[in-house]
């Protein structure tokens, strides 16, 4: 009964009803007053502190092509939420649904607002404009305008007052490190600087959520690292980040939680560790020698079968999955001693997000 009441309160809240309205409704429906007050407060507190975005049963098709089918997930306030999936899995479509560029065929996107209310983004597109900043793979600003002019232009469109506008622009220029280039036309900025300007533009209205779609697709590794540092910095100031990327290693390092989009649905959702655990609780020992001849080792490992979960050989590299690497490593050490300096690489690791992703995709 309590769970049903809590769910009812949550659903009503997500339809945009205030806590007073919900209380009134529940009282009229005959729920006990004390229970109503307790559950309403609890549910709202959970919503306020927890989810900032909740995607409900989002479905979208383009002609006969179903892109999303009842996709559901939530983004918690203050986290960096990563969305991964194969090309064409629907990541961009999902993000576009969230920012209101595309209307879903069914489902809704609920936003928890700073004032404590929960509103449907579909019914209140203005809320998206106010509370969500968006940045795509291609920087979106006016090339002929300078850094400052771009920021001022978008700030004015968000109706910032002149003092707020100046303050906000200066703060963002400082944040993205474009102080020296503030009067340089955007077209003359380097790729990394343009990306930073794009982020600054996305943050101009001080949104509580920043949505990034493949933000580092065109950047080299150094610029990518700088960019992720900036994202962490922004997140550190309290902005919730929702991003889609195909750089899984970086996603793994950066994101609080990760959703894997597969078969038009959210196939997996959790922290990197949770995803790894879902995939496998084993460790993986990666070994590569000059000769790539592992027969002697494989024979030796046969004797330690209880500690071996799986052995695979990929591109000359031997991958040994084991729940207890300490029982396998002595055999490898003996093998390497016999090889006499023939080793190229050896390391022990938990499965990477890439391997988890591969596993999910293969399923």
């Amino acid at each position, binding site marked *: 009964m309590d769970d049903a009441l809590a769910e009812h309160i949550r659903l009503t809240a997500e339809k945009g009803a205030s806590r007073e309205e919900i209380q009134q409704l529940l009282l009229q429906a005959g729920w006990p007053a004390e229970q109503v007050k307790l559950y309403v407060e609890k549910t709202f507190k959970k919503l306020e502190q927890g989810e900032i975005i909740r995607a409900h049963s989002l479905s979208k098709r383009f002609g006969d*092509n179903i892109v999303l089918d009842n996709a559901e997930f939530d983004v918690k306030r203050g986290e960096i939420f990563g969305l991964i999936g194969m090309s064409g899995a629907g990541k961009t*479509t999902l993000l576009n649904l969230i920012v209101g560029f595309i209307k879903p065929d069914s489902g809704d996107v609920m936003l928890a607002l700073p004032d404590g209310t929960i509103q449907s983004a579909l019914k209140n597109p203005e809320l998206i404009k106010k509370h969500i900043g968006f940045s795509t793979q291609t920087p979106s600003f006016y090339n002929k305008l300078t850094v400052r002019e771009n920021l001022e232009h978008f700030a004015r469109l968000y109706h910032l007052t002149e003092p707020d506008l100046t303050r906000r622009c200066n703060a963002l220029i400082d944040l993205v490190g474009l102080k020296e280039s503030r009067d340089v036309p955007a077209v003359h900025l380097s790729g990394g600087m343009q990306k930073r300007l794009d982020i600054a533009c996305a943050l101009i209205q001080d949104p509580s959520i920043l949505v990034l*779609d493949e933000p580092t697709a065109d950047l080299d590794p150094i610029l990518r690292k700088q960019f992720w540092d900036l994202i962490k910095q922004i997140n550190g100031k309290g902005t919730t980040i929702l991003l889609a990327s195909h750089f899984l290693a970086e996603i793994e390092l950066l994101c609080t939680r990760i959703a894997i989009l597969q078969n038009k649905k959210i196939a997996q959702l959790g922290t990197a560790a949770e995803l790894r655990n879902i995939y496998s609780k084993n460790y993986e020992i990666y070994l590569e020698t000059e000769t790539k001849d592992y027969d002697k080792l494989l024979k030796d490992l046969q004797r330690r079968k209880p500690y071996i979960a799986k052995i695979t050989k990929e591109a000359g590299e031997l991958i040994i999955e084991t729940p207890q690497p300490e029982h396998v490593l002595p055999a490898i050490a003996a093998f390497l001693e016999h090889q006499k300096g023939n080793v190229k690489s050896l390391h022990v690791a938990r499965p990477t997000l890439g391997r988890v992703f591969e596993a999910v995709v293969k399923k």
Partner: protein
Amino acid sequence: MISDVIELVNKNLKNMIRAKAGSLVVILGPLFVIFLAGMAFDNSNVYAVKIGTYRPDADAVTTSLLDQLRDQFKVIEYGSQTECIDAIKNTDINTCMIFDANFTIGVPAKNQITFYVDYSRINLVWTIMQTMTQEVGATTLQASQNLTRIILDTLDYTHQRVADQREVVVRLTTENELILKNTQDLLAELGDLNLEFDESGFQLNNLTSAKTQVKQWVDSAISLGEKGLSKSTSFIDAANALVKTSGANSQAQANLLANFQKSVDEIKTLKATMAETKTLTQESFKKFDAQITRVQEAISNTKSNLQGADTSRQLSLRVLEAVAGLLDKSLLSIIEVQKAFNDIDNKINAIEIKDPAGITQPIVTTIKPIVQEKTYLNYLFPVLIVLVIMFTALLITPTLILLDKHSPASFRTYMTPVKDASYILADFITAFIILFLQVIIILAISSIFFSSQVLANIPEAILLLLIINSLFILIGMAIGYIFNNEETATLGAVTIGALMLFISDVIIPIESMPEAFAYIAGFNPYVLASSLLRRTLLFDQSLIAVYGDILILIGYIIAAALVASGIYLLTRRYSLQQLIKDLSPVLAKVHFKKK
């Protein structure tokens, strides 16, 4: 190689056909233009030409001419020339036909028909000139033939009469030759006549009688003198006696006797003189008589001569009588010829039209502009400026919109809480500013060529150009919102521009189109706009005079604004999705693949 080419062509066609809007515009646009242009131009008639006319004197000739025109055109009569010309300016009629007062075919200064035309519609002017030349030309030709026929008839009559008189002239020539011969004969006769005589021989009788009388007077005078002298002598003798018997002193007697003696002496002298005179007189008279005799002889000779002359005179009289007879006959012939001349003269005088210009061109048509003479550039200025504005607005506005549509920044603008109306208004104002500047530049440059024309109506011109600008900008906006790439938008804009151009009076006059088409073309924004500008700039009409057309344009503006806004709202989301595809190459790739 051929298979490669076929494959590539196949690919190109597929690409084009699958770009739906593009292929629709590429294929249907020109088809539509050609279809409409074909409908409009596929004729050679002048369906809707309206002719205004003013004739100071309504008579049978002008009525007949107008009735002839009524068979093909709508003819409206006006009460004055000004009313008629104003009707052209108000576009109620296309040409105004003014007849001369007392219009008379073939009579210079009365045979002129003046066509007033709007030179700013130059193709209509040529059409009207051609048509009117044909229509009036037929009447003119008929009149010219009639007049020529009269002249030819007269010539024929003259020819006949001259032929008739040729015998009379021959006869007259013969008679005259005869008269000449007789006269020559007479001259010869008269040439032989000697009429010389001594003039001193005249008045001889008078001289003889005068001599006799003088002789008598001389004799009588001498006789009287002698008697007088005898009496004087007797008187003196008596006086002497008296003196001597008187008692007068001797001295006095002596003096008297001396004086008497002196007088007796003088009388004696006188007697002697008289005797001498008598002698001399006798001699003179004898000489005189001898002279008279010689004169008489001369006269006798002269008389003989004159008798000869008389004979010649008698002969001459007979000759002259014959000449007089011949002259009588010649006179009759001359009278006959004169009568023929009079008839010919009367016949020629009966020809009313004697001016060669009147015969060769019995009706003179003149084409005059309804406004002060200007160059073709002046006349074409309103059409040209609207043309420039139309195409600029139709091309620049979609370009501006598509520029922003395709700009990655536009999606960020979309993210801002800016109302749709603001976007639409901003697009309009941006294009408006650009085109306004263009209008100012055009007007500035135009003022170099037509300073008086432009400057005189600058406020009206600017206001109208802004209205026209607004309309075409809104049409351009609708095009910009419909299409998603610049090529198709440009093609769409060119198609719409070409349609407006074809269904206007730029290529052929609207009046030459089928009536239904012409009616629709009358509402073509381009036609309305150029007509408004023409009426204001060329005819100096006030905005109040053209308010009807302005209201229609404003109606179009409202409609175009609604259409553009509607299209914007309908296509906004689609455009955004297209932009997102561009911004997210991965998504685009997948979508295209799957489609």
